């Protein structure tokens, strides 16, 4: 069972839920390039301009671990990254769990994603002003020294560290993506986990995905906000367990 973090965080956000499955599954956690403790030196802005590159990385991890008929659990943008990965390697995942997914964030004709282009620019502005525990001077030391956690504690916010330039690129790749046309081709069994009151992925978007996916189940969680894996890990665990 592979857990993929969404925009804004790293694998830490899945720790509680993932621990619940360690008994029954081989659990795989990872950080996307530029996030958490990944090796940011392998990053290239050109390559990671679209979600396809992230999906290729998921497939590469799956191949390296010989994953076959595994469960992919993706939060937020990772739900779509998992869908793209399942198209690239159809045998790798037998189940997809999408937590707070959206195939397109920006409104379009006949489609309400919940966002406008200007609002995305506001988010990019916020990211430029908030490096959230990132310090360019400290970064190489922190990123390369998993065995020296004291280096990290000097910064105020120690989780979900992301290189600000990469966070900006990832925000663009995420919020400007449009994967609606990919949904129809996904033959994998899918569970759509929808939060109540999620401004990032509103109810209508979750229902849209459920309708567009050929083999999907839809479940509305009582959890509110965009990160039920953190705010309601037990409810998320139960929903996944029932599905797989």
């Amino acid at each position, binding site marked *: 069972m592979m857990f993929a973090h*969404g*925009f*804004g*965080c790293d694998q*830490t*956000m899945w720790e509680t839920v993932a621990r619940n499955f360690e008994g029954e599954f081989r659990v795989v956690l990872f950080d996307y390039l530029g996030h958490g403790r990944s090796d940011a030196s392998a990053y290239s802005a050109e390559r990671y301009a679209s979600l396809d590159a992230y999906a290729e990385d998921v497939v590469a991890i799956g191949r390296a671990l010989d994953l076959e008929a595994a469960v992919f659990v993706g939060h*937020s943008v990772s739900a779509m990254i998992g869908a793209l990965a399942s198209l690239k390697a159809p045998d790798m995942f037998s189940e997809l769990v999408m937590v707070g997914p959206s195939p397109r964030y920006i409104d379009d004709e006949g489609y309400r994603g919940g966002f406008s282009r*200007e*609002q995305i*620019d*506001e*988010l*990019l*502005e*916020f*990211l*430029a*002003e*908030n490096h*959230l525990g990132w310090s360019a001077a400290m970064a190489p030391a922190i990123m390369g020294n998993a065995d020296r956690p004291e280096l990290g504690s000097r910064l*105020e*916010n*120690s*989780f*979900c560290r992301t290189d600000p330039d990469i966070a900006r690129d990832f925000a663009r790749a995420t919020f400007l993506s449009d994967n609606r046309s990919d949904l129809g081709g996904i033959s994998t069994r899918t569970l759509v986990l929808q939060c109540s*009151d*999620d*401004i*990032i992925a509103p109810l209508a978007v979750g229902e849209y995905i459920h309708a567009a996916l050929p083999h999907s189940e839809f479940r509305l969680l009582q959890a*509110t*906000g*965009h*990160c039920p894996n*953190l*705010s309601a890990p037990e409810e998320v665990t139960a929903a996944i367990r029932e599905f797989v």
Partner: protein
Amino acid sequence: MSDSPPSEDLEDLYETAPCGYLSVSPGGVIVKANGTIADWLGRPTADLAGTSLHDILGFGGRIAYETHLAPLLRMQGHVHEIALDLVTANGEKVPTIANAAEKREKDGSHRFTRLTFFRAVDRRMYERTLLNARAKAEGESDSYRKAALLREQFIAVLGHDLRNPLAAIAGGVHLLGRKEELSERGFALLEEMKGSLERASALVDDLLDLARGSLGGGFAVECTNVALTPTLEQVVAEIRSIAPERAIEASLRVEEPVYCDRGRIAQLASNLLANAITHGAADHPISFEAATAGDLFTLSVANAGARIPETVMEHLFQPFFRGAVRPSRNGLGLGLFIAAEIAKAHHGTIDLTSTELETRFTFTMPRSDLIAQPSNERPQ
């Protein structure tokens, strides 16, 4: 006797503190707000309670709260120093710096989140100015880098394209000398042309080396274990034939093989010798020594002549630097730069000492690849 200190009114401290207070439920609903933040937002405190935190954040802040701040709060319990814009009843932005912490029950469950806001108009404006200045500087250095790259590519292409016509001229000169009947004057001219051709070819080779060095991030060398003595003897013989009037005292004690690029080491030795010929005192011999000793290979070239001033020494290994002592007509000023690049590519160094008695360049490198360490002086 002094008066007793005034006692603090805690309720008033909360309501009129010089910062804004908000308490928010796990679901994002404002539970309590103080008077200060209500004033900033132009809304009564009673009106704020029960509304969503989203309603007083700009859109960027809302997404950031959901994607970044809420997860961080759950994981580490607090988030500090967040630049956040609040939005007033009139839709105006209030720039603030915020800290937030989760208030948790004894069992660890989330009761509510407390947020403290500091109005930070000047501070945020200052930070934005810094951000803009940095973006501008990055843009400028980027375009500068591109221009420099273009210049280097131009040099590489020019050097490369000059080779073909030079080769054609060399072929013609060769044929003229062998197959044609020439007058004595014709032969003399032909010999001068050969000399000029060699100089032009050497200049082009240096240019190509420069382009390779700066474009490729260092010289590429192909190393094998080499017996260097014959190579170095040949270099000395070549320099003697170019400058027959100068004395070169060679001492070669290279008993062990050296792990290096034979052609490049020959080029380094040749460049150092040529430098000594050009700048050394003509009436004193040049000393050329090479030896292996222990783990090291050293090669040094010394000449008599004027001491090199410290200010000149600093720039000697830079490309296109030609000693201000006198104009040289022998090259572009790339010889020492290329020698230094070759040294670097072999994980070696060139040291320079200059006194009234002699000027000496000493090249030192690890003799075997087992002891070679990656150079940290290599350009990025």
